[in-house]
């Protein structure tokens, strides 16, 4: 998969992500109220609005720089644990893309970035976090699944976190009582993946 992007694509992706989080803010807060502190939706919305406010200047940057800057903006505005986690993901993707000079193998770049998120959160697959969506999304991407299939895999993976016991994050304080609830971070991750896949499907037919 080639990793080049024109400004309009960056602006479009920023907008679909912002709109998706805005439309699901209450839903994400409700998921977080069940096993966390109830602010994941508003935190993510604040971060996406901050990115959106910088949209124009971000769109004029080279793609890797734009991605890294979006990550930093998320770190500075989302707060909570989600800020550094999503921020690390994007900052790593940006750095790796820059290093590889646009000849990047995107699944490999994504894998390195996901591993950085795992290190940042000291979490593993199965701990009931956004990693439980990111790893399956990477697997689908690496096996060259179509965009629609990647999105469905993300949604299924998020729903599967309901059966898991939280080992990291605020929900871990609940122990067994975290079982039965979908993880809010996994859910926002699946929502964003789906939005990105749909947008790319419409604007970048494979």
């Amino acid at each position: 998969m080639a990793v080049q992007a024109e400004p309009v694509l960056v602006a479009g992706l920023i907008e679909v992500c912002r709109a998706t989080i805005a439309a699901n803010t209450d839903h994400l807060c409700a998921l977080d109220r069940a096993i966390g502190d109830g602010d994941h939706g508003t935190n993510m919305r604040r971060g996406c609005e901050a990115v959106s406010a910088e949209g124009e200047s971000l769109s004029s940057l080279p793609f890797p720089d734009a991605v890294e800057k979006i990550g930093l903006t998320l770190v500075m505005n989302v707060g909570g644990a989600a800020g550094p986690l999503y921020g690390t993901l994007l900052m790593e993707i940006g750095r790796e893309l820059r290093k590889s000079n646009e000849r990047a193998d995107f699944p490999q770049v994504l894998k390195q970035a996901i591993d950085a998120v795992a290190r940042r959160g000291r979490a593993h697959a199965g701990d009931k976090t956004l990693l439980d969506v990111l790893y399956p999304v990477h697997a689908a991407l690496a096996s060259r699944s179509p965009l629609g299939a990647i999105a469905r895999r993300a949604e299924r993976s998020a729903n599967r976190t309901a059966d898991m016991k939280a080992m990291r994050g605020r929900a871990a304080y609940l122990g067994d009582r975290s079982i039965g609830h979908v993880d809010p971070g996994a859910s926002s991750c699946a929502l964003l993946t789906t939005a990105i896949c749909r947008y790319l499907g419409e604007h970048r037919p494979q």
Partner: protein
Amino acid sequence: MNGKTANVGIVIVSHSPLVARGIADMVRQMVGDCVPLAWSGGNVHGELGTDAGGILKAIEAAWSDAGVAVFVDLGGAETNSEMAIEMLGLPRSGLVSICNAPLVEGAVIAAAEASGGASLAKVVATAEELSP
């Protein structure tokens, strides 16, 4: 901080601005002002949460060439503190340690230790002895 002290600095990070400020106030009253001290509490809007940018500013404010010990409450505070330390960049990031210690007791005992001119390693070790 002001060049008069080579003592290790202390930073308090809490989800609550009131908790962070209250502990900083307590440390100040108990230990005095020979230890560089700063706090960061709440998210960018001052609501419950933590903010990597705010933590970075607090580390800068409590900066000492002897190093800075950071005390955190719940999960996101630690993750955001790690992020802030990375943003500080080398070589200074190598002189900042997050302590695995109770927030109130850890900060007070670390500040007491720091006020005597102890090294960062000694300050951190003394605070971490309080961990169960």
